């Protein structure tokens, strides 16, 4: 039984290696929890989300170590861009965050990179960079204090906050 399981896992890992070609680097964080609130390890729930206006969520979420915007994130940011265009006097701070499973200094840089990914997207939808400030908190300000993959997924985020 046990051996079978080990063999099976080994095969899975081997298969994953072939696909990723960069084995044992990327998905270091366990993705063992299937909660329906995560896709891959990107948070898809709404527990922590606040709204800048009706139908305008304030945040987007990221995969471990990534700063790529998901389809859902791009949709959120388009809604934010539309709202910002309607409210030309409002400036925003994009607060970039990382989860606790990384070294402090790298996470500061990663938070900055995530917030910039959001900024770049807002800019392509017509929002001037003058209206956007980027602020990284690294792993210093988690929203969920849990030590599990779901909590971490909520913490890997870029939050758009009104600056005035």
């Amino acid at each position, binding site marked *: 039984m046990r051996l079978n399981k080990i063999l099976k896992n080994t095969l899975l890992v081997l298969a994953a290696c072939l696909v990723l070609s*960069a084995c*044992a*680097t*990327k998905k*270091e*964080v*366990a993705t063992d929890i299937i909660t329906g609130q995560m896709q891959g390890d990107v948070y898809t729930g709404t527990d922590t989300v606040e709204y800048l206006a009706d139908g305008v969520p304030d945040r987007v979420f990221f995969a471990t*170590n990534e*700063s790529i915007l998901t389809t859902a994130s791009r949709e959120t940011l388009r809604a934010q861009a539309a709202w910002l265009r309607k409210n030309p006097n409002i400036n925003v701070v994009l607060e970039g965050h990382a989860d*606790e*499973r*990384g*070294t*402090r*200094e*790298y996470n*500061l*840089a*990663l938070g*900055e*990179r995530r917030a*910039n*990914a959001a900024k*770049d997207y807002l800019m392509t939808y017509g929002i001037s960079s003058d209206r956007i400030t*980027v*602020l*990284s908190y690294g792993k*210093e*300000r*988690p*929203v*969920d*204090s*849990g*030590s*599990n993959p779901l*909590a971490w997924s909520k913490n890997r985020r870029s939050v758009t906050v009104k600056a005035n």
Partner: protein
Amino acid sequence: MTKKILILLFILIPINANALIEVDITRGNLNPLPLAVSPLSIDEKSRKGFEKILKKENIGSEISKIVENNLRTSGLFNPLDKKAFLQAPDIANLKPRFEDWNLIKAQALITGKVNYVDDKLRVEFRLWDVLAAKEMMALAFTTVPNNWRRVGHIISDKVYERLTGEKGYFDTRIIYVSEEGPKTQRIKKLAIMDQDGANNKFLTLGNELVLTPRFNPASQMVTYLSYFKNMPRVYLLDIETGTQEVVGDFPGMTFAPRFSPDGKKIIMSFAKDGKSDIYTMDLENRIVEKITNHQSIDTSPSYSPDGKYITFNSDRSGYQQIYVMKNDGSDVKRISFGNGLYGTPVWSPRGDLIAFTKLHKGKFYIGVMRTDGSGERLLTENYYQEAPSWSPNGRVLIFYRETKTNSKGEGFSAKLWSIDLTGYNERQIKTPTDASDPSWSSLLSN
């Protein structure tokens, strides 16, 4: 803060005896050397004098306790129980009866005496080789009474150096970040303490987030990251005067600061448009130089002790790895090739090793490797730990460790730990609050 206090040091008698005892520090605490720390003797007049000023009943015993504690925590020595001592402290200091000390299996003996002379604290101590029945070292110090703890640390350093052949690390301080409050809203302050946890002081009030303080190896200056006015920037703090200033004029976040070995430059990261590069700033002429230029995250830079090389953390390969380059940014070489992610490289003050944090399969490790990346050795594994800082003699690493919270998100704590380079002698360093981001000072004396 701590004023520079002159400690006069005399060599009482030239050292002539060759040591027969020797401590092999590469073996860790497998077999700590048994030694006896006889309480420093004190005459009644001096005892009363110090009791009045220092509110300590017997300053001689207090200094001995510091020595004993330092030697024990090094993991290399086993100070024996005083109850077993047969000879009185004052007589032992004149001429030990070696057969008595031999009987309790002490291989080395420390004796001494304390005097109150002209409002000053005068301490003399002697180190004896019990088996050879010889004096190995005799020194005397004169200083202001308030400096008594430092006298204990200096004695410890002298004993350590005489018995191991390497400099000690006891007369040093640790700067760190004190943490309080819930995990989602931590209040962080800069704090400083002696290496043994005594004399803890807070340097900031906690109004803004502060991170990663690091000592200047050449002075008691500190560089750190502060979120003052919600703008994360590298600052410079003079802990003697309390004055602080922002380092450089960057249009964005500067972070991950460290000093160059001569203390004349600060090296740090500057993040802009989603990439982080490494910069230096000369503290005298304020000239800023860009050292790396890459689309990736380049951070956590640390100089080699000769200042010629820099090790740093980069994800230019796709993931966090450790690199080494020349101090002008040329000749970049990746040195970490094991499984997992590597961060926080710190060059040993001895120059031969780089300490790092490693993340592999959901566990965090503190480890060391040679500067070409060979000989990787993991010293300790845990749920979360990072940010090693070297003792000035390059024998001990201090770092911080965080606990996993329970299903309700409770039970979080962050503490400082130290471990010997051998991987033995792991200990928690007690702090009044939770603590992270420790940085070890150089030796305060000499």
